[in-house]
């Protein structure tokens, strides 16, 4: 075991897989010599050579499309889109191509590729370095969408994603790359080393896709969340005095419906927290699923705490970011219901 930040854990996952499988290679903008703008691919080029970890032209369409071609050939490419906000030029290749090649060819061709992209705000990145586009992927038949919240999960989930035989969108919550930021801006951010989930095995292990994790057990209200917001939800649970159960979904598609149903059936109350804009966001899907599966257990209307339906505002970032007080307000509302 070693203590790792999420960046180090992701790097360790790539290292582990490149060591095990010569079919695994990684590339993207600044990914090679420099090791990526967030250093997730640091030292990989030095260790595995430039053919297995290299810089790509600034063309996300080309990065995604060439990875599709490589996956079709039989490799397992892991590409980095430098910021999730930059993925739109690649969107057609991901949605119309990667997602559908197995289906349209009737299983003749498959696309085992992983698309890593840092997402989310809280870093003063403005509109083009802060977005959370998960719903644009969960809406697409043929893609899997994964969001880790801790170093331990990040490594285990990334290895599962790389070994998966379908294309996986791997969204990395960059706000918690270096520590489990919980939205309490008045307190110093804890380093990962003080968090138990920073204990990461050096070697190979997997966390299965499609399985949620109960990060806090409770009886009064279920909070459904993922990525950075898991830590914010935990802080809200702590500050509220309400006995909340916090679920880290980890995989958004296919989502762990059994874990959701079990928890909400027990608590009878549900708050959904994500950073993305609200309308047609992933929370809308979660809300619909809870309503369809748990309606007769619900004691109160489901609440959503999300980013607002605006572009990500630079100077007003902390007005936009769902903080513990906003979550607590929603928790109180469902408790009153």
């Amino acid at each position, binding site marked *: 075991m070693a203590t790792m930040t999420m960046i180090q854990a992701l790097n360790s996952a790539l290292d582990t897989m490149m060591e095990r499988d010569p079919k695994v*290679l990684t590339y993207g903008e600044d990914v090679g010599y420099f090791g990526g703008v967030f250093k997730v691919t640091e030292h990989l080029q030095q260790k595995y050579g430039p*053919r297995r970890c290299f810089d*790509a*032209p600034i*063309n996300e*369409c*080309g990065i995604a*499309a*060439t*990875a*599709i*071609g*490589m996956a*079709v*050939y*039989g*490799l397992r*490419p892991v590409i980095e889109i430098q910021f999730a906000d930059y993925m739109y*030029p690649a969107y*057609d*290749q991901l949605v*119309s*191509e990667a997602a559908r*090649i*197995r*289906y*349209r*060819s*009737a*299983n*003749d*061709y*498959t696309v085992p590729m992983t698309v890593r992209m840092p997402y989310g705000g809280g870093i003063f990145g403005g509109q083009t370095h802060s977005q959370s586009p998960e719903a644009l992927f969960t809406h697409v*038949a*043929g893609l*899997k969408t994964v969001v880790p919240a801790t170093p331990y999960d990040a490594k285990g989930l990334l290895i599962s994603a790389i070994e998966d*035989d*379908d294309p996986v969108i791997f969204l990395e919550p960059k706000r918690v790359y270096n520590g489990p930021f919980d939205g309490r801006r008045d307190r110093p951010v804890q380093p990962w080393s003080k968090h138990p989930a920073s204990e990461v095995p050096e070697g190979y292990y997997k966390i299965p896709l*499609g399985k949620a994790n109960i990060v806090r057990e409770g009886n009064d209200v279920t909070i459904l969340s993922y990525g950075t917001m898991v830590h914010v939800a935990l802080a809200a649970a702590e500050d509220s005095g309400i006995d909340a159960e916090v679920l880290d979904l980890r995989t958004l*598609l*296919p*989502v762990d*419906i059994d874990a959701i149903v079990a928890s909400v059936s027990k608590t009878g109350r549900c708050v959904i927290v994500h950073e993305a804009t609200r309308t047609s966001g992933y929370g809308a899907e979660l809300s619909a699923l809870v309503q369809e599966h748990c309606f007769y257990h619900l004691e109160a209307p489901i609440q959503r705490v999300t980013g607002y339906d605006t572009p990500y505002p630079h100077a007003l970032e902390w007005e936009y970011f769902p903080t513990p007080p906003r979550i607590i307000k929603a928790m109180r509302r469902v408790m009153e219901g």
Partner: protein
Amino acid sequence: MSSRKSNALDLHIPAPRARPGDKPDFSGWSFPEPGDTPRPDVDTPAVELRDYAYGLIRVLDMEGNALGPWTPHLQPETLRRGLKYMLLTRAFDDRMYRAQRQGKTSFYMQSFGEEAISVAQALALNPDDMCFPSYRQQGILIARDYPLIEMMHQIYSNARDPMKGRQLPVMYSSKKDGFFTISGNLATQVPQAVGWAMASAYSGDLRIASTWLGEGSTAEGDFHAAMTFAAVYKAPVIINVVNNQWAISSFQGIAGGENTTFAARGVGYGMPPLRVDGNDFLAVYAVTQWAAERARSNMGPTLIEHFSYRAGPHSTSDDPARYRPAEEGRAWPLGDPVERLKTHLISIGEWSEEQHRVAQEEAVETVRATGREAEKVGVLGADGAHTRQSMFEDVYKDVPWHLRQQSEEEAV
């Protein structure tokens, strides 16, 4: 509208020389004589090849003589095979076009006039080289001896459709034949082919990739992504722009062909830009051989513009007489690829009018007999061709819970 100032800016909207009712006008084009273009060594640096973007590599003259250094010196048997595959492709297109008109399927796309490009290239490549075609390269599958009946099953979306009724007609796929699943989204296959070629090079393989797109789709960003990646990583890939001059109703000027050639796109990327008479079987074969040898020698990609003419409609959904002179195809100065190869074979004493007539009849009869077999299995809309369950398969390797649930919902 207010009167324009004398020095006002003016917006240029390209327009073709001739529209319906006009006489076909190809006077704007000038072509080098067959045999006049030198054949550079395969390892010539791209920077020395720029002029090829603005010329036209031709071997066959209109009397059927093979001239000059690009003559590929093929065995007569290979030429006859090529001709027969072109005849088969044309007969296949003709029947399937009519099948759509008879309501047996929803859609069809012919390759009429462009058969030499697919067939000559399929023969010039190795059988295991990987093809990433667009929707008008059925000649590749046919020249790789893919069963015609499988193509028909696909077009009819019947119970034996290899694509299980999921794809629009003509969107074939055959991994064992090195033929990538066709997308209806244009140019997406081009950077994918580059990625496949990069993977082949990464793996120390010997196979190269080849990909096709129309001149209209070169305007897509995907084409430029492909050119950049192919050039940067010297991917062993051939990028073929089939310039058939028409993208549905838009003439090639709308794609940027008014002031330069499509081959010239290669110049900016430092890629050899070969421009070839796409209706000249021998020339197409020869440039493909050149590009394939270059790719196989780790010297990277080649861009080939095949200058041709789309002699038929874009698809069964448009009537070309509404946007171009009906007789324009017949006026195309570079003729018809089947006629030109036939004339060549006859001129070298390896073919005759009678043999041609017999071969043509054989092709038509093969297609007719195959068509009857395929129609026995079913045409589009036949009940029970595919189970409802099959709709939910192959979205993912394993069926996830939400799809299983949807598949179990009561069918209405």
